[in-house]
């Protein structure tokens, strides 16, 4: 027994271990040795990194999703947003005409810009992302999301956690967590409002750019309904 190494473990056993790590760790594990790679690339390990309902999601894709293994599928789903149900867009601009559901992405980035002419001069504005989390929301609260605003050389940055479980269960605002300086509010219409930042409109710039992104964790995330970005004058 003393000379037993884990490489002598049955592959499915090693799969268990790797399936509890992360996509990143699993990819690096493939480099350990050729034998280790068998487990690190296996469907058994990668099944865990895919969302539980991935079969249903890919069945609704605009174009057929073909893949040779679960790892390959993960790569495909991670490299580009999936267009479903007739191809709803994921790159958003302020005030789009319909609600967009983000089903599943790896890098989440919502970007909006608006011409400054549409705003009142000499006024402080707040920019808010209007969202809802669906029942199946996942992966959104693993890493903090970044929010930022840019107008000319003026820039603001902030971070926020979208707490899937808490928001789903309570539909309420949660207390601030460490490293988080923006707040999620529940509106009267039950949509959630994430403050992206604020800025003063001196009227001397052309446009305002706004971001909401979570690109640090490369895990898959989804279940975010996005209505749009709202700009309101602040008191």
């Amino acid at each position, binding site marked *: 027994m003393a000379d037993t190494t884990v490489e002598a473990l049955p592959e499915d056993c090693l799969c268990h271990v790797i399936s509890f790590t992360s996509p990143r760790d699993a990819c690096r594990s493939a480099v350990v*040795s050729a034998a*280790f790679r068998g487990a690190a690339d296996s469907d058994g390990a990668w099944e865990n990194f895919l969302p539980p309902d991935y079969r249903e999601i890919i069945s609704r894709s605009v174009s057929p999703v073909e893949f040779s293994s679960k790892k390959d599928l993960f790569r495909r789903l991670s490299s580009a947003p999936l267009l479903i149900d007739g191809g709803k867009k994921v790159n958003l601009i302020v005030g789009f005409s319909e609600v967009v559901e983000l089903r599943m992405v790896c890098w989440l980035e919502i970007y909006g810009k608006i011409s400054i002419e549409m705003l009142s001069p000499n006024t402080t504005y707040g920019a808010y992302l209007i969202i809802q989390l669906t029942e199946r929301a996942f992966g959104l609260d693993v890493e903090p999301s970044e929010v930022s605003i840019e107008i000319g050389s003026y820039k603001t940055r902030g971070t926020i956690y979208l707490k899937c479980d808490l928001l789903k269960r309570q539909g309420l605002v949660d207390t601030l967590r460490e490293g988080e300086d923006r707040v999620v509010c529940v509106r009267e219409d039950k949509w959630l409002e994430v403050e992206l930042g604020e800025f003063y409109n001196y009227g001397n710039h052309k446009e305002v750019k706004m971001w909401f992104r979570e690109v640090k964790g490369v895990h898959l995330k989804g279940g975010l309904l996005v209505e749009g970005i709202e700009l309101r004058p602040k008191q």
Partner: protein
Amino acid sequence: MVTTDEKGPLTAKKKSVIIRSCDGDEFLVSESAAVLSTSLKKILEEKEDRLIHLSDIDNKTLAMVIAYLSTHADDGLSDDLKRSFDQEFVSGKEFDVLKYLVLATDTLQVTCLCYTVAKKMADIMKNKLVEWVRREFDIQNDYTPEAEAEIRRLDAWAWDDRQLEDD
């Protein structure tokens, strides 16, 4: 030597099984605990005598698995207590010990413990250098430098600026 597990006297009236490790130590275990292992259950269904010899599990590892089985077979313990026992069970254990445990629980088909141990190993493995994994798992790198470079290239995103650990 017969080592009774801690529930020995209480379960004396119940049927017991003797399990022998590969290094010859024998453990007296209640049958209700033993059958939580799918493999042991099958063996007990097929044979008359109550002695099971496990040729590939050492005494230290076997003692740990039996402590787990006995705790989970104890109807007097609440599920919460069993869960906290599980957490306690893997916390602070060396990676090397966990390797033998995961191997034993896989052989004995103790699914829940196998998952708990695998999860713990995964937590330790996260964000570790490839060299760390090779060392801890005692694995020889059998790639040619070209083959290794090719695999690294396939998933270049897995090697980002994140600091990887080597201990």
